[in-house]
């Protein structure tokens, strides 16, 4: 197998291009912030960004001018309020939007991952969403004539994910919430994964049920500890709820947002530097008390 391990700067430079359709997933959990910051530093432009919950990560990319179009299903600051860079861009007409429900957008990725043209769902009846998004189409089932809606497959150019661990072949293991990461990876032409730890292949093979994404479809693996901060990595660090609250003030004021992007992204060249700047103590305070699952016996057959 080819060693997929590389550094974040090289991976983003090689695999993310201006104008790409990019999906960066992780539902509250494992949001790939470090990778997004590298995209901002590399000044990528005209990206179509796909994500169920744009969250702070896309508010930052929008604020930094990387995004031309947003495909999403819930654009808020979870538990806090609004995404202000997103709202300003929509208000100014500088950001094209295409929106779904969570189910609809998850099924777009599902269809892409399964190489189908669309997925049928029992949804959108009586909703105005299909009126503003003509990609959501009603159709009649060829089996019994039921009314359904279809959402089209999406096959992004690149998926960017963060995970707890992978081996150098790119076999990725995630525990806790797995969101739509598997669908996003299989739907995309290229897959880049940042991880808390790179582990020997034997660790992966000893627990194959936990492998969410096989190395087969992974282009690059980068070791980026704390790469999901201020979101969380189950078992490694908790969500930085304070930062999500602070983002309300930062993103509300375009000048504060610009200063934040300058200080924490442009002038902070790597996630290591970000961690140093934030202070190890603050990150260590986010570490949960360890709580292990019971090991399972797979047996040995030879």
């Amino acid at each position, binding site marked *: 197998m080819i060693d997929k391990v590389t550094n974040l700067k090289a991976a983003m430079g090689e695999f993310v291009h201006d104008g790409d359709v990019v999906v960066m997933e992780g*539902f*509250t959990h494992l949001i790939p912030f470090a990778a997004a910051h590298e995209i901002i530093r590399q000044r990528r432009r005209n990206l179509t960004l796909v994500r*169920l919950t744009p969250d702070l990560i896309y508010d930052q990319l929008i604020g930094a001018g990387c995004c031309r179009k947003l495909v999403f299903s819930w*654009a808020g600051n979870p538990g806090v309020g609004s995404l202000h860079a997103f*709202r300003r861009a929509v208000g100014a007409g500088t950001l094209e939007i295409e929106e779904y429900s*969570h189910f609809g957008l*998850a099924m777009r990725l599902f269809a892409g991952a399964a190489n189908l043209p669309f997925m049928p769902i029992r949804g959108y009846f009586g909703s105005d969403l299909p009126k503003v998004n003509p990609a959501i189409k009603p159709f009649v089932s060829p089996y019994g004539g039921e009314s359904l809606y279809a959402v089209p497959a999406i096959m992004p150019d690149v998926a960017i994910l963060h995970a707890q661990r992978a081996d150098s072949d790119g076999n990725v293991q995630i525990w*806790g919430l797995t969101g739509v990461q598997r669908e996003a990876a299989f739907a995309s032409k290229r897959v880049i994964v940042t991880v808390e730890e790179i582990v020997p292949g034997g660790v992966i093979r000893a627990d194959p049920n936990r492998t969410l994404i096989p190395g087969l479809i992974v282009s690059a693996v980068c070791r980026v500890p704390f790469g999901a901060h201020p979101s969380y990595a189950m078992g490694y660090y908790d*969500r930085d709820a304070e930062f999500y609250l602070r983002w309300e003030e930062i993103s509300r004021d375009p000048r504060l947002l610009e200063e934040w992007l300058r200080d924490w992204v442009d002038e902070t060249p790597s996630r290591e530097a970000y961690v140093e700047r934030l202070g190890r103590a603050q990150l260590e305070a986010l570490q949960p008390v360890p709580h292990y699952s019971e090991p399972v016996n797979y047996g040995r057959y030879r």
Partner: protein
Amino acid sequence: MVAIAEPVGLYTQSEMMVISASRSLRDGDVVFVGVGLPNLACNLAKRLHAPSLQMVYEAGIFDANPERQALSIGDPCLAAGASCVTAISEIFLFYLQRGLIDVGFLGGAQIDRHGNLNTTVVGDYSHPEVRLPGSGGACDIATLAKRVFIIGRQSKRSFVDRVGFVTSPGYLPGGGRPAGAPGGGPKLVVTDLGVYDFSACGEMRVRSLHPNAPAEEVRNKTGWGIEVPVDVTITLPPTAQELRILREDLDPNRYYLKGEQAP
């Protein structure tokens, strides 16, 4: 079952709202839970009269058993200790669309007299006055859950005659459900002023008013001519136990009941 009221001191209208919502949940219900006020109401019900209530979250969680207050819909405390953590696709395909959800519990919306919800936009879609977050799972839950409960603070802006944008469908004028929608539609709306249900014509009506909520205020904070019967039922006030669990265990930092100190 409703806990028998012991005499209690003061409480806020928001506390009354969450407590009356919690009483509407039945033991054994499988509830698709929105974060915030629905989450408080479900956890309160689970601590009291509905210990076998099973909480499902769109993040991919079945039967959560959180040890702390969840600050977001994907909080690690909801995944740790749950019966099952699975892909978002599976939660929507196999749990919700499969018909396993008894109650879809939604919050934070603009609602109209027919139970249609707007969380998308106020004003023109392309040039909005206010851009809201969008559907999330709400459109799917409103379409597919057997019963839909809605909780939120009541004002003339949130309780409107007709929403400008239907994100999540309720009833058609006249009472039917949109063709094709498998779920039963909205059954209950709980606000800081009262509890509402829906007539056979799919129109919201008063079921009870909370103590300290005058009929006049209810009419003023409703965007259509809602009828408040003279002999309207008054919601049972909170019990000491309900208030203690809500204040001390579920929202000790007033994260969701913010802006209102416990009296």
